[in-house]
């Protein structure tokens, strides 16, 4: 992690250590690269086929949940995973490894197309929910950017691997926060 990054560790009496790693893209929903940002977040941890789920959970069996939370107002994709305390360093390395894989373009065609299809589904399905329609319009009024899910879905169709690689290389790991379980079985 770069020197300016923040690292915080706290403890609590519990079973499971939770690791949060905040990657800052600097892209918000009013920016032209917004669809690429959604793509980056999806590839990293937005779907069961994503790097975090398929590696941290399925391949290594180290977590039940390993995914990302996206903050489209501040431009963050935050990896979050629940693990046993003894594995925290190993999992932190694994998460950084997955992000570096994206930076280096180690993204298969299957990963690209599965992410594209999944994002398109979520965005097009917004029209089925009044709440989602209202939310999208409200965000547009405040921050600009797309007015409907369909608009974003159309642009998702055009995102390329190179777009994602370029954005990943401009993204910085800004903070690592670990809530350490004390007294786990």
């Amino acid at each position: 992690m770069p020197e300016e990054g923040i690292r915080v560790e706290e403890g609590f009496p519990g079973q499971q250590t939770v690791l949060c790693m905040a990657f800052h893209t600097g892209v918000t929903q009013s920016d032209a690269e917004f669809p690429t940002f959604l793509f980056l977040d999806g590839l990293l941890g937005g779907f069961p086929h994503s790097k975090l789920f398929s590696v941290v959970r399925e391949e290594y069996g180290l977590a039940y949940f390993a995914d990302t939370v996206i903050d489209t107002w501040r431009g963050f994709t935050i990896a979050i995973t629940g693990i046993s305390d003894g594995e925290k360093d190993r999992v932190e390395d694994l998460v950084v490894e997955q992000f570096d894989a994206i930076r280096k373009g180690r993204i298969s065609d299957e990963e690209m197309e599965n992410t594209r299809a999944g994002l398109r589904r979520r965005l097009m399905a917004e029209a089925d929910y009044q709440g989602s329609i209202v939310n999208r319009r409200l965000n547009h009024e405040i921050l600009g950017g797309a007015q409907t899910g369909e608009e974003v879905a159309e642009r998702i169709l055009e995102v390329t691997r190179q777009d994602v690689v370029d954005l990943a290389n401009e993204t910085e790991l800004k903070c690592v926060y670990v809530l350490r379980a004390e007294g786990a079985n």
Partner: protein
Amino acid sequence: MHKLPTLTDDFLKEEIYCADICGVNVFFLPKPKFRRRYAELCVNYGSNDNVFVPRGRAEPVEVPAGVAHFLEHKMFEKPWGDAFSAFSSIGASANAYTSNNYTSYHFVTLDNYDKGLALLMEVVFSPYFTEESVEREKRIIAQEIGMYEDQPNWRLLRETLARLYPEHPVGLDISGTYESIQQIHKDTLYLCHENFYSPANCVLFMAGDFDPDQALNLAAEIIGSYVKDPGNSPCRIRPHGTGRVGEGAEIMMSVPTPLLQIGWKDRRLFDGRKIVIRELACAFLLDIMFGKTSEFFEEVYDQGLTDDLIFSYEAWPDYGFTIVSAETEKPEILKEMIFEQVERIRTRGLDEQDFERKKNAALGRFITMFRSFEVISQSQIRLLGLGENIFSYRSILEDLDISDVYASFDSLDPDMSVSVIIANEGVSMDET
């Protein structure tokens, strides 16, 4: 395919097409203009099914706690790879969950519905387990158990049910324990799959913008290619959950405010339509006594005892229980007040206007259910098991009488109750 009469509701202008396909009960809800297309395959098998007589044997077996949930996890792993990824590659999103009485597998998609349906059948009806993948899943589920252990509300409910039901599997954790999951092997999974995942024990619910004949014909074609034989009904062994309750407890956890939960075991058991009536009547009773518009809530709120009371009642043929919970700085005081309120209303009786208001609110909520495929699906599947359906539910609700609510007071017998408090170390429990 054997078509069954279509369910209709003239008031809502909704209809559900029904069929029996190779033993599977199939429902289709047309939803024109919606983009999402949904399918849920529900197996009538849950964490409560830990004792059964396997096919071809004479004696019951007991499997470790957590098998139904473990099985749900492993059904997505196939010889060719991971089914979640296969759903992703057709643009679909799949998920599953295990509850006390059901295991549900479902997906949502915009396109490729036929491929999704075929994949769903393969997930549910083609088991594939290896010792290696079972061992790996134990680590994943151990993390899941840990995640729930750290959630105070989850812990609260688990403790209450364990103490209410020392004799019935609803007192067990759905995911099992760290120890119980170690006892699960691939043979256990194959045994349970063989006995419970038969087509006759499954329901398929589909919803989306399709022509009804198109939808049912598609289901017939796809189910037909995966299922030859409806299979047998499982031989479940379930105790009646009406025995004496255990002791209450105070549990130490790191929480900002203490949590209080009171559970009441229902002495009486019901079946079919009477379960629906009992659940509605108890829900009304709880809402009248503890809801946001009750005098009781206003009083506890003004006294600063709590800002929210959560309550529910659920019933199955073999057990029924009520839960009331709250976050409060004074758990012992609030607990006494809750018991007193039950007795006060039992003595004083119910206000007819309160009852009418609750009924109108419930009808309003029923109507809004119809925007959610998932809620309609889960309700219809459950009601099917009770010999009812989502539209007869509306009639039962409309016909509910205040006498039904009076009759539900006996679900709140103080001798059948258990209280659980979760608080930080050092918080005094004996405040008066």
